[in-house]
């Protein structure tokens, strides 16, 4: 495949895996928790680097999962201690992220773990860093990592499809049915962490947040069906990232940044034009109601 194609495929993988997970986050109203986790996995990556002295994928995943779970746990702990949820998210993620940034600037400055990389990712360099995989030949490292995380996410979602669905809509009933609501919550948090860390390397922290939230929010405006929302959200993620790539190419700007911008534009389109929940249809239906009343 060509250089350009690899970037688009990598972006699409990020969009698809983040999009599908994002659908759950929106339905469960924990989008900001995901935002927090996608920031704090930085600390996990740094810690993994300090322990293993390498940018080994397995260590990074382990570190990210640990710190991601810790974030979710700490937020819950503070929240149950009487602090508002948004405030506890704010305290936890800023602290852990600050710690990560300090550790990078103190100990890891020479590696390619610099701050800019963290924020913007280096999706443009993705095709050059390759690993050879048995019968497939040379494949970009980020592609392999994102691909396997995407498959893992899909596997977990199909395995726990019903549980995810019930706990999203009615946790009380789920608990009454004997579904381990908290476990499912933490499974989702693990998925957010590993997906963030896999996407982190190629697209950076901020884009991960955009990709986790924007496609899900867009899909939420377009459908009322749970399964449709999952598929649509993943599809919109792919669309966002691809559109973002071409915007970046046209204007010669940061690829990850323009992917976020594309996600924003596509959300705005859905916001205005959505057949059921869009601003325009709201306007028209209000108009129609007025006419009927007259």
């Amino acid at each position, binding site marked *: 495949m060509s250089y350009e194609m690899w970037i688009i495929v990598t972006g699409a993988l990020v969009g698809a895996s983040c999009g599908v997970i994002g659908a759950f*986050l*929106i339905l469960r*109203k*924990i*989008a*900001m928790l*995901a*935002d927090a986790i996608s*920031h704090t996995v930085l600390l996990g990556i740094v810690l993994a680097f300090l322990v293993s002295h390498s940018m080994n994928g397995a260590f990074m995943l382990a570190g990210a999962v640990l710190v991601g779970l810790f974030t979710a746990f700490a937020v819950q702990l503070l929240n149950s*201690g*009487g*602090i*508002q949820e*948004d*405030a*506890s*998210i*704010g*305290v936890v993620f*800023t*602290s852990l*992220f*600050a*710690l990560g*940034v*300090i550790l990078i*600037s*103190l100990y890891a400055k020479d590696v390619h773990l610099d*701050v*800019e990389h963290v*924020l*913007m990712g280096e999706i443009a360099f993705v095709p050059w860093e390759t690993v050879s995989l048995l019968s497939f030949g040379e494949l970009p490292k980020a592609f392999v990592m994102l691909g396997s995380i995407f498959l893992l996410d899909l596997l977990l979602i199909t395995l726990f499809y019903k549980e995810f669905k019930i706990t999203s809509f009615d946790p009380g009933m789920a608990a009454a049915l004997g579904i381990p609501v908290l476990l499912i919550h933490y499974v989702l948090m693990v998925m957010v962490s590993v997906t963030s860390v896999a996407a982190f390397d190629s697209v950076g922290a*901020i*884009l991960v*947040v*955009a990709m*986790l*939230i*924007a496609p*899900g*929010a867009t899909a*939420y*405006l377009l459908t009322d069906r749970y399964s449709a929302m999952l598929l649509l959200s993943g599809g919109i993620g792919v669309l966002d990232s691809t559109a973002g790539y071409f915007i*970046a190419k046209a*204007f*010669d*700007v*940061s690829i990850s*940044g*323009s*992917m*976020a*911008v594309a*996600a*924003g534009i596509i*959300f705005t389109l859905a*916001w205005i034009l959505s057949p059921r*929940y869009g*601003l325009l249809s*709201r306007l028209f239906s209000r108009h129609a109601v007025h006419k009927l009343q007259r």
Partner: protein
Amino acid sequence: MNQIWQSIASDGNTQWVLWSTLLLGIASGILGSFALLKKQSLVGDAVAHASLPGICLAFMVIGEKNFFLLLVGAAATGLLAAYTIQLISGTTRIKKDTSIGLVLSVFFGAGIVLLTKVAQMPSGNQSGLNDFIFGQAASLVGRDVQMMAITAAAVILVVLLLFKELKISTFDADFARGIGLPVKGLNFLFMSLLVLTIVIGIQAVGVILMAALLITPAVSARYWTDSLTKMVIISSFFGGMSGMIGTLISTLGKGLSTGPFIVLSATFFFAVSVLFSPHRGIVSTLLRRKQNDRRLAFKWIMKELYNQPEPLSRNNLFLQSHFSNGQCKAVLKDLLEKGYIQEKERIELTVAGKEKAYQYKLVDEILELKDMYPNDMAFDHLEWLEYGQAEQISREQLVEIDEKITAFHDQFVLPSFTSAYEGGNKS
């Protein structure tokens, strides 16, 4: 350490930087308290992220680093973000936290896009706009710092002048409207002050971590008090100290960002609050729980010994109690020292002990009666019983309680019997 003091003492600029981060911390501590109570903590996060595109746009338009105009740009996109969040959650079924995350990441993405554009401009390389991401207080110079300090001071002044109005509209918007306060105007003013504080803060703390300076000191202060005035004072103290300490630490190393250190200083104050604040802190809660357990064990053992017809052996007592053996032993030791019990082979109450146990029994009984028949047993002058002062009860008061209980039983049980008896006689 010496190095720091020397640089503070000799360098006028460092002094200004310290003063301005102190004032910035105070201002954000105050506004953060209000934001916390309005449940708008993370809005500040979004506004901070969203100021990045404004800064870049302003730079692209004017082509040089004019601090004031950059801040105008930051304020413009920051306010735009705040209103977009309200618009999204107001016109769709998307929840507020989702719209915050959405606006935050999209605006920041736009900021990154514009940042790459700025870097391509001929003057862009030395623009230092990157400093806005994690904050670089040390790079602030001369007039910029002074402007930052003055703006922060102005924000503080405005909030103090309108403190009462803001307080009322925060806690009870309907009441505020009722007494004729312009609630919408106050909200707009508050939002503008918040944006202003964030905008002057991003140079020192950075757009990503600025939210911490708004949230963490306020949450920490919440641990120490329930009164808004005290909360604002404590929060501004934490905020100001964090700003100053963080800046000091970051000047120790070359090229260290200021923001993360300010944030970690704030986190330190937060940790101290969580652990040691007098009412809600973990340590004091644990201590109180332990004390309470101890008191319950003390009472239980006394009553158990009083109720048993024969003296109990240690093992018997341990078996019947649901307290740990260690706790029982400690209580028994305490009782021995106070002379309430004597122990040969078995444990027995002394005369003083019996009196004390009887007292516990009566107090518990009357409190129980009061719970069951609140109307009949509502004697005001016994209210002190409920406030844990049952320990220091005088003999007269005890007699009084005893009489009350007997009177109560007489009133309910005996008359009904007698009247039934008399009634039967008559017919």
